[in-house]
């Protein structure tokens, strides 16, 4: 397992269980998952639908709390946090990228990227400059005023990535980020992820496409609410790093 010089893990899940109640029936979604992600890792979580990977993703993303077990995010036990504390933790430490982009409609790219900073009490001026920087970093420096409807799918996803990065998160969570994109655009987006990872960002990616998971450096496979397989992948670069031509 990758370990970077005794630094504390970004994600440390200890025997996590999650059970949903459907009427009178208890449905176990996670049945004892233990997983650690060290800083700088690029992990792809795979599994069939119903395998528990989405539930795991929601827990890691502080959108939900485990029924049993402990979850340390960057060393902090967030498994018993209140809703408000979870929201704080999300805003401060996690960046989300979704399959459906989830940008605010009829709102400019810049304002979409500013959104996470709004809830961290960042001043307006700083919000604007940081959002513009983040957009420039994903190659959309010229499209700050465009609304999602005026952008292609790939561009929308890049806005979403910029939004995920703007609070300098400890962890980038991507849920099927290429699910709505064509293969060429998918490769571009994965290229951005690789580049970010190389700059030190920890990424956890949920996907069901094995060719996408191959761009990660570690693959974790879920089945029936448990980790079935966990292995390293040989590094495969998609896009040459900037400046290397």
């Amino acid at each position: 397992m990758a370990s970077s010089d005794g630094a504390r893990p970004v994600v440390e899940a200890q025997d996590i269980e999650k059970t949903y109640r459907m009427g009178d029936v208890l449905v176990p979604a996670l049945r004892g998952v233990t997983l650690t992600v060290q800083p700088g890792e690029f992990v792809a979580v795979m599994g069939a639908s119903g395998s528990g990977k989405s539930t795991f993703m929601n827990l890691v993303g502080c959108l939900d709390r485990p029924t049993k077990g402990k979850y340390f995010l960057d060393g902090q036990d967030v498994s018993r946090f209140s809703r408000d504390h979870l929201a704080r933790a999300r805003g401060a430490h996690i960046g989300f990228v979704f399959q459906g982009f989830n940008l605010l409609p009829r709102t400019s790219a810049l304002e979409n990227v500013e959104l996470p900073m709004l809830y961290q009490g960042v001043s307006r001026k700083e919000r604007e400059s940081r959002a513009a920087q983040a957009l420039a970093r994903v190659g959309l420096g010229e499209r700050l005023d465009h609304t999602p409807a005026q952008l292609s799918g790939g561009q929308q996803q890049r806005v979403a990535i910029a939004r995920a990065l703007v609070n300098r998160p400890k962890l980038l969570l991507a849920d099927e980020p290429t699910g709505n994109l064509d293969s060429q655009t998918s490769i571009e987006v994965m290229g951005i992820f690789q580049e970010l990872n190389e700059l030190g960002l920890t990424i956890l990616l949920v996907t069901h496409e094995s060719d996408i998971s191959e761009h990660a450096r570690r693959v974790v496979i879920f089945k029936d609410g448990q980790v079935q397989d966990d292995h390293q992948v040989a590094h495969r670069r998609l896009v040459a790093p900037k400046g290397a031509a």
Partner: protein
Amino acid sequence: MNILASLRTALRALRKNKLRSLLAMLGIVIAVGAVVSTVSIGEGAKAKVASQMASLGANLLMIQPGAMQRGGVSSGAGAGQSLTRDDGAAIEKEVAEHISAVAPINRTGGQVIYGDANWSTSIMGTTAAFLAVRQWTLESGEMFGREEEAAAAKVCVLGNTVAEKLFGANSPLGEQIRVRHMPCKVVGVLAAKGQGGFGQDQDDVVVMPWATLLRRIVGSQSDSVGSLWVAARGAERVGDAQREITALLRQRHHTPETADDDFQVRNLTEMQNAANEQTETLSLLLGSVALISLIVGAIGIANVMLVSVTERTREIGIRMAVGARGRDVLFQFLTEAVVLATVGGAIGVVLGSGAARYMAIKADWPTLLSPPVMLGTMGLAGFAGIVAGFYPALRASRLDPIEALRFE
């Protein structure tokens, strides 16, 4: 998220759905507009009544001979002859503590003629005290005095309208006119006073010494007066004056303890209060209708906010995913509701002021817009927004981010 940022977010959200926002605030617009215009119209009407009463003279008491019975037949008020010049003199002397002036007034009508011009007008016989009682001034010339009165001199003072009808732009001073059959010298012209409380032209009058009217025009040797007008020394003295005058006149008229007064003392302040009470009743009625429409307006906002929360479930999910806490979402939607209501209130204030102004011009009274009322109703509208927006906002804040993100 700070207040400024929430406001900006709210405004942006409302701008994205202009028509709906407009419709949502319509109820509040109408309610606030109604309150502002009603209050202003009520105040205007009150001011008009007050100025009409003031044009009659301040702190005025009017004494008229009362109903009297002769052989079992009651005649109406003012028909009797129970009030005399001596009564007036006695009041002036005995109640001097509370009153400043007493003027007897008898009226008749008649034709006034000058050269080719003639005019039918009201002829009034009184004393010099008339000016003080009615708080009237002369535009030119002078008032007749005690000597003219004692001698029943053939002099008169013209009301502004009469002067204009007979003389046009020329000065009537020193000219001889005929009042009915009597030649009469014009010694003064009254300043224009305008419309009276009941719409009549107060300037359409010829004023002459009381004795001249009675002895020469009416041809009566009687000493009884049509009415006595009394000016109290101040608003707070009116009640005392009324009480003492009543006691004095009963004593002078030898009225038995058990009998009714054979005269009537009318207090113009009371009449004004009665008129104001009517206005207030009407204002209250309109005001309560306005309050009901405010409630309806608030329900409209609540309705729109509920729809908006459902429609924007995904947006709420996104906001929560990027770090919005429940209270941030609550605050955001509450702000939207309050902005809707307050902007609606502001539009209502503008429209209501406009309506009040229009009414004021139509009805010829001052436009009285009270800033506290305008701010108060706007505040009330804002409060209605909080009440209306709270439940929808609470629902939004309690959404589960995972489900909200999945919402289509």
